[in-house]
């Protein structure tokens, strides 16, 4: 019986690590996607001579579509693992709707306050992450301080804004920090 108990604890530990890794992968996606979109846009406009605006628009659409596909898989897996680990018994009503609504709400608020594309991106993502952390607390009771921290970093960074490159760098920094914290936390448990 003791061996069975130990084996079950080891399984739980492994599943919890996997859950956190799936949470981190979403942020890691944006670390390479945001920097990749910016870098690729520079290369295309520099060597092909297409306008930066249209290239950026196409690349953003591609990055978002890729993210939705990635997020769908990761979200399903996280929910399955949380069910097994007893963190969520049933999907709370309105949880997914609230998570989706965060982004149009953030976009509207960012459009009201941002003066250019870079600050719009920082406010949009920063506010979105803060709201996501709030929704997590409200619906599941879990304190996702890592996501909230990324949101705060992005929002606070708008005061020192110097250009779109700065916004790309800060976003990549915040996202890589959160994924690092997720994985570090998972390894410590």
């Amino acid at each position, binding site marked *: 019986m003791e061996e069975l108990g130990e084996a079950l604890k080891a*399984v739980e530990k492994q599943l919890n690590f996997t859950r956190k890794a799936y949470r981190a992968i979403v942020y890691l996606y944006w670390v390479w996607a945001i920097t990749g979109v910016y870098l690729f846009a520079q290369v295309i406009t520099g060597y092909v001579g297409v306008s930066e605006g249209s290239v950026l628009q196409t690349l953003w659409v591609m990055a978002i579509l890729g993210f939705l596909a990635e997020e769908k898989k990761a979200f399903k897996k996280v929910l*399955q693992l949380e069910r097994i680990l007893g963190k969520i018994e049933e999907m709370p009503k309105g949880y997914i709707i609230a998570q989706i609504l965060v982004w149009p709400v953030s976009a509207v608020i960012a459009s009201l306050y941002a003066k250019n594309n870079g600050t719009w991106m920082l406010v949009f993502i920063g506010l979105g992450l803060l709201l996501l952390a709030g929704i997590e607390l409200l619906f599941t009771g879990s304190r996702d301080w890592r996501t909230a921290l990324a949101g705060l970093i992005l929002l606070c960074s708008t005061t020192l804004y110097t250009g779109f490159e700065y916004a790309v760098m800060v976003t990549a920094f915040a996202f890589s920090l959160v994924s690092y914290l997720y994985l570090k936390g998972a390894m410590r448990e």
Partner: protein
Amino acid sequence: MLDKLARLSKSPLGNPTRLAIALYLLSREKATFTSLRKALNLTPGNLEFHLKALEEAGIVRTYYGFGKRPRKFVEITDEGVGELKEVLEILRGVAGD
């Protein structure tokens, strides 16, 4: 205790190999037949036998994907996750008794 063991014996995941298959698949989006076979050190015939039983019970889903050559993929279903949760709870109870 006896009730729990009776429920466990009736479950499609009551067999240790099938339980290991479900746990392996739970951590992954999907697994290829070959990776699953290698990870659990099973023969193709043995794995095929267990997968057939799990698929009939609705625990896993198998399908073919095409790349350089057709590959068989396996993934756990939501029903499978529910059953796995119950089995793990029973085992936790047994370990705690």
